[in-house]
């Protein structure tokens, strides 16, 4: 994106209230089962990273 092109406020990565509405809209576009899968993948990746760092 050209540096002089402004990002619309709604698309900003740093919303004023700290809540990223783009993430909310993305999750709402998924089914409940897909949302659960997304959370599970997040938890699994954190636990795997923790286990890997413990072995170092």
């Amino acid at each position, binding site marked *: 994106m050209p540096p002089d092109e402004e990002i619309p406020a709604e698309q900003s990565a740093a919303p004023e*209230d*700290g*809540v*990223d*509405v783009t*993430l*909310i*809209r*993305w*999750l*709402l576009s*998924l*089914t*409940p*089962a897909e*949302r*659960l*899968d*997304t*959370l*599970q993948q*997040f*938890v*699994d990746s*954190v*636990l795997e990273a923790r286990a890997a760092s413990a072995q170092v």
Partner: protein
Amino acid sequence: MPLAPKSDFRAVLRVLKDHGVDFIVVGGVAAVLQGAPVSAFDLDVVHSRDEANIARLLAALEELEAWHRSHPERGLRPDASHLSSPGRQLLMTHYGPLDLLGAIGRSRDYQDLLAHCTEMPVGGGLVVRVLSLEALITVKQETGADKDLATLPILQRTLAEKRRS
């Protein structure tokens, strides 16, 4: 007592359902199921403290090999007296952490919360009762703990987005 080998929310839910346990998913998993971008490492459920349900829950916990994770050295298993209380039982299972809550917010128990639930398909043919986003917000406001208040803006924005769409 060994640590849980992995986390599997759906597997815990399936065991509870297979044993006919009456429960409501609350907390972070309930929030995510309704589109809120929060994280959760444990599964929070409010269970019916009806005597027959506690018997079913104990059978499910036996299959899950649940133990109180606050005292790992003792390997203490949950019993009926624990599950009959309105308090919070912090358990570890072989599918990850499971928190059983007798009541939440201003002493709201399973019966109180039933009217504020929705049935949600969570994959694999599994349908579970989940506390609504509106009720989750109310309960977190009532609880007033720092970690609950921290997620309130996210839940409120998610609810607003759901109402817009």
